């Protein structure tokens, strides 16, 4: 209200300046690079781009990326929700320390995360040589990729679910309990539906992160075509061997999946807000 009464002539030109500065910065660092990449990928025609994407090696790396990311998300949904539940609803010794350490994977450089996993499960380590005795190879293999993804994305679901669980009204649960519902029924019929949007948000964020992950994966899985080469490692290999054309196909695919996930996240948020208002 007061805004209209107060004279703020000086702010007008200042406002415009600030706006141009932010548009210019976002335009130069985010919008322009994306547009230039998309234009460049279309220069050879759609069929050439499609041919690059459908090369057997490219297609294999894309499939490996999506499959490992999907397995990681399924595990994270269960463990992340359970972790949030335990941290919010129960008390146990060391709970505060654990709560603080949940974000450790976000603070840790991904290459350090990769080195840690190699130190622990690699062929030189105690666990690694023990597993090797049973013919289980974690490093330079698919389980290593999933393990690295689980490490770097661990906080996403926990941190998405935790605040919702704290705010959740427990009256309904108490009522259901009085009416004789089992804990399982209470969880799946009452708690889980209200947590669903936040679980989906955490899942989408970790999936998006996993599709682009590079540092930890190159350490634990290396760069073996048709075996451990994920999409980001494939793109890196093409750039390093001076074949930018070959790198464009999968880059554009990853870019579009990122767009789609961002749209999905905004949709979940919008849907959630509308749901709450009703």
């Amino acid at each position, binding site marked *: 209200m007061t805004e209209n009464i107060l004279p703020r002539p000086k702010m007008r030109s200042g406002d415009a300046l600030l706006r141009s500065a*932010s548009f210019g910065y976002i335009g130069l660092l985010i919008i322009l690079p994306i547009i230039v990449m998309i234009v460049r990928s279309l220069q050879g025609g759609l069929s050439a781009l499609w041919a690059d994407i459908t090369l057997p090696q490219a297609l294999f790396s894309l499939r490996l990326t999506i499959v490992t990311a999907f397995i990681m998300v399924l595990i994270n949904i269960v*463990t992340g929700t359970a972790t949030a539940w335990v941290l919010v609803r129960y008390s146990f010794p060391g709970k505060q320390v654990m709560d603080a350490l949940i974000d450790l994977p976000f603070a840790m450089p991904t290459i350090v995360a990769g080195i840690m996993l190699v130190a622990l499960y690699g062929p030189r380590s105690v666990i690694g040589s023990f597993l090797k005795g049973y013919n289980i190879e974690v490093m330079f293999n698919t389980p290593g990729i999933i393990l690295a993804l689980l490490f770097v994305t661990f906080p996403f679901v926990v941190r998405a679910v935790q605040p919702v669980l704290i705010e959740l009204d427990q009256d309904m649960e108490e009522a259901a309990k009085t009416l004789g519902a089992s804990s399982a029924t209470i969880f799946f019929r009452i708690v889980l539906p209200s947590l669903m949007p936040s679980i989906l948000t955490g899942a989408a964020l970790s999936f998006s992160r996993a599709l682009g992950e590079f540092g930890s994966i190159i350490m634990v899985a290396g760069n073996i075509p048709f075996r451990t080469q994920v999409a980001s490692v494939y793109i*890196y290999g093409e750039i390093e061997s001076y074949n930018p054309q070959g790198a464009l196909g999968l880059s554009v695919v990853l870019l579009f999946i990122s767009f789609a996930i961002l749209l999905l996240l905004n949709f979940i948020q919008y849907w959630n807000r509308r749901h709450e208002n009703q």
Partner: protein
Amino acid sequence: MKTNNPGRLVLITLVVGWFAVLILLPVYGIVQETVKSGLSLVVSSLSTPHARHAFLLTFWITLAAVIINTVFGIIIALVLVKQEFRGKLLIEGLLDLPFAVSPIVAGFMFIILFGPNGLIGSWFEGQGIKIIYALPGMIIATLFVTLPFVAREVMPVLREAGLEQEEAAYVLGASPWQAFWRVTLPSVKWGLIYGVTLTVARSIGEFGAVIVVSGNIINRTQTATLHIHQGFTDFNYAAAYSAALLLAILSFTLLITMQTLNRRTNES
């Protein structure tokens, strides 16, 4: 709800066990691996010219990224919170893109744009300025991956602070500049420090985007994370593990800082 739940103990054990194996055990793994090398080897691997150059380069890139993204982060937050314009939601959505884009793809985009044959890069090449495979490109890549942090942390604080105090400052005759330094900036202080901490952590740790644009030239464009990777591929495990442990300790310190800040923000 609290007692008489037989599954409770089992669930706590499972969750804590999973967390310990997935997150804590690897930390122990790297400490043990470094200790195995012996303290003198750790110190000597960290004081080689390559290692020192790499850590110093990481320091300068982080400093540049923090300064530039703090200034633009605050400006973007001010614009998105205080101004109304068409396409605001679109800009807000675009602001999150660096979190969603693969660092490798990000680095690749900058090669296309700023490389010797790129739209902008070719002009700079004509002036004799190299961006890609040089420091400017590495700073640009780091700016991209850390762009949202300050803006995203300042925006909610700014929204909550509201306009009243600022309006009061104007009524009392303050200039926009005075109002910003004396009223707006202090009110977003904690959000800003939190955003800066996140920017520092990510800048120190960035690997994918930087390796793509840097060309990975030893003693020239090799940062700390690239130095770790180099040590590992050269089977120089002592160099890789000791540098990794040093970065891990740095990140751990930043994490503790973040948690302390978070608690403070929640209290105030």
